[in-house]
């Protein structure tokens, strides 16, 4: 048989994601790509550049800004916006707090506060398709999420209105005021994302790789100090070699101790940690990390 030996799993995932993005461009009026500066949104942007080349990316970027950002991530964001001639809108949690649309929480975490500015941003700009970097392998509950996920005027997900998805025929019809969340990375795993970053030589914000940083320990996580409110008097700052596995609100995004300085190092670390981190302490670390991600997802996606 003369099968194409060079069509690999990553080619298949890329081709599928590009197809999804082109479907959105063909069926929707005002698509937007949620861009956090995290690796999944960076991979989505890379795929969008590939999907429409040599045209520029036909989507607006929206950043939901918690106000507690890593400066490296904001620099990265501004740099790509400039380099690729993109349009960026910022939905600000701080503005929402100032307007009284949301109320600051006692624990200082702003992840749960992202929903309101996100939805207000979608309404204000009349976005009808919203790309997110969600993956089905992230947790059991996500395993059934559609690639095209219909949301009502309140951004809510109604299980009874989710449509069966067959072949590669995506149904994006929606009423005025409703929008569709679109997940082009649905079938990617975390390792796939990293291997794709390696293959495509995609630049990431520097905090994804090892660096020396002053951190303190809270709830089993290494947090970086900042004007959001850490460390408290009883928390000790120390310098450690760390990296971040996700980027988000500084108040609750923990660093992990790591010396991984290249994509290959990170892949080796991710491959090993998912397989062998079994010890009680490590498992607890992971559980709280997963819970943190869940909260982020509730608010964000």
């Amino acid at each position, binding site marked *: 048989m003369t099968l194409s030996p060079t069509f690999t799993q990553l080619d298949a995932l890329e081709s599928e994601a590009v197809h999804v993005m082109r479907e959105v461009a063909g069926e929707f009026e005002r698509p937007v790509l949620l861009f956090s500066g995290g690796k999944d949104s960076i991979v989505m942007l890379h795929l969008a550049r590939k999907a429409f080349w040599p045209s520029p990316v036909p989507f607006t970027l929206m950043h939901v800004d918690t106000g507690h950002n890593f400066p490296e991530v904001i620099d990265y964001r501004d740099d790509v916006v400039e380099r690729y001639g993109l349009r960026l809108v910022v939905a600000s949690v701080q503005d929402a707090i100032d307007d009284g649309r949301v109320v600051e929480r006692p624990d200082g975490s702003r992840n749960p506060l992202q929903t309101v500015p996100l939805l207000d941003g979608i309404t204000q700009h009349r976005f009808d398709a919203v790309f997110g970097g969600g993956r089905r392998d992230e947790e059991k509950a996500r395993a059934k999420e559609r690639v095209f996920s219909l949301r009502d005027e309140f951004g809510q997900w109604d299980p009874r209105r989710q449509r069966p998805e*067959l072949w590669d025929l995506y149904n994006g019809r929606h009423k005025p005021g409703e929008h569709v969340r679109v997940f082009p990375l649905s079938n990617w795993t975390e390792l796939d994302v990293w291997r794709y970053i390696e293959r495509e030589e995609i630049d990431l914000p520097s905090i994804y790789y090892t660096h020396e940083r002053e951190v303190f320990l809270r709830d089993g996580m290494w947090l970086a100090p900042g004007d959001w409110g850490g460390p408290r008097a009883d928390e000790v700052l120390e310098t450690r070699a760390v990296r971040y596995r996700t980027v988000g609100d500084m108040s609750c995004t923990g660093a992990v101790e790591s010396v991984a300085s290249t994509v290959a190092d990170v892949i080796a670390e991710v491959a090993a940690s998912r397989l062998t981190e079994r010890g009680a302490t490590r498992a607890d670390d992971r559980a709280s990390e997963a819970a943190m991600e869940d909260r982020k997802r509730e608010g964000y996606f």
Partner: protein
Amino acid sequence: MTTAPGTTDLADETVVASERTADHTQRDLLRLATAGSVDDGKSTLIGRLLYDTKSVLADQLAAVERATAARGGGAVDLALLTDGLRSEREQGITIDVAYRYFSTATRAFVLADTPGHVQYTRNMVTGASTAELAIVLVDARKGVLEQTRRHATITALLGVPHVVLAVNKMDLVGFDEATFRSIADEFAAYAAQVGLDDVVAVPLSALDGDNVVERSARTPWYDGPTLLEHLEVVPVLRDPGTEAFRFPVQVVIRPRTSEHPDYRGYAGKIASGVVRVGDEVTVLPSGKSSVVTGIDTFDGPLDEAHAPRSVTLRLADDVDVARGDLVVPTGAQVTVAQELRGTVCWLAERRSVLGQRVLVRIGTRTVRALLREVDARLDVDGLVVERFTGVDTLHAVDATDTSSDAAPSALGLNAIGRVTLRLADAVPLDDYAEHRRTGGFLLVDPADGSTLAAGMVGATLLDRLAPQDDPADEADWLAGAGI
């Protein structure tokens, strides 16, 4: 028998090493679906595949180990790994297709887990639509049941090319060869009837791991592959050389930038076959012909490209091409018609009504249509085809009366019927049996946008079971005789 869960620390070390050293750049992707009746062991089998391929995240495994310990210990219950659906089932929430991911050094797998129960047909049709392989599970103690036949029928209907009959719980029948053979033979006979030609039967125990990943010492009489061995060698792609080229246009790329002022390309994913620079192609439905002058990608131009790669085609002439068009090789025999005869699986709670207005989504095109006729319905449980007299019903049916005796041909949730649709425009129609990637369509409700039905152009399976033009048989079919 494989190592029991919980005692695999040594194995882990090996896998970590292979994760680091294996050449993942050569790994390909297989999509598969599973089907089984309740308690046949589907959750256990999927859990076993995830566990034995080390695709379980450490925190998930820890949670399952804790849950097992809380119930008094023993071997880890692998079914808990995929148990998100069980609680829903108990709460009566809509059961849905869930996707699972696992991989080996040579292949990554996307598994559509389609649970049984109320919405069974709908779920399995959805999961099977993208699958290259279906695992049909049976309990060795029970053998081939009505539900097994149903699973085989849907697999055939959706044109899934490869089937594995997983004869599970072999430990409960003493790994008896005769039991396995008789189940495999009975299934093979039925599979042949519905047109499934690649069926491999594997005797296994999902609970103990026999023949799932590791070869079992308890089935010395079995010399076939383990389940995973088979999953790793099944061809992922059909030989593109034998498949006709099809390219549904998604978007027209016109940058109009100073760098690319006159660029015009047609972006899409190759649905089937191969395209080469210099190929003569025809754009349907217009019928205009041209020559491929470029196959572009972000990473540079290609001389040829295969399905399912996403590319952008450039054509020699300034033909008018838009989203929804289908590019085919010049000279290909493709029907372009306003009448679509096909098979649909009804997915909505609301029943079909003859004469109802729908949207047909086929390829990248959406066209308005009327449901003119439903002339046969397939009962997947008994594999009986019920036929109706073919009435042109556009005027004859009271659309508000949905009681079953007033509209005997109405299709309810999960019903499979042979239909005729009248389309507003003539569109290219590929028969699903030969063109799985372009012959599928959706029926969409123009009012609220919901997906009403999954459709396939043509009616190979129903025609085989109930030939339309053979009135001599009609009395039998009407009397409800099976095959």
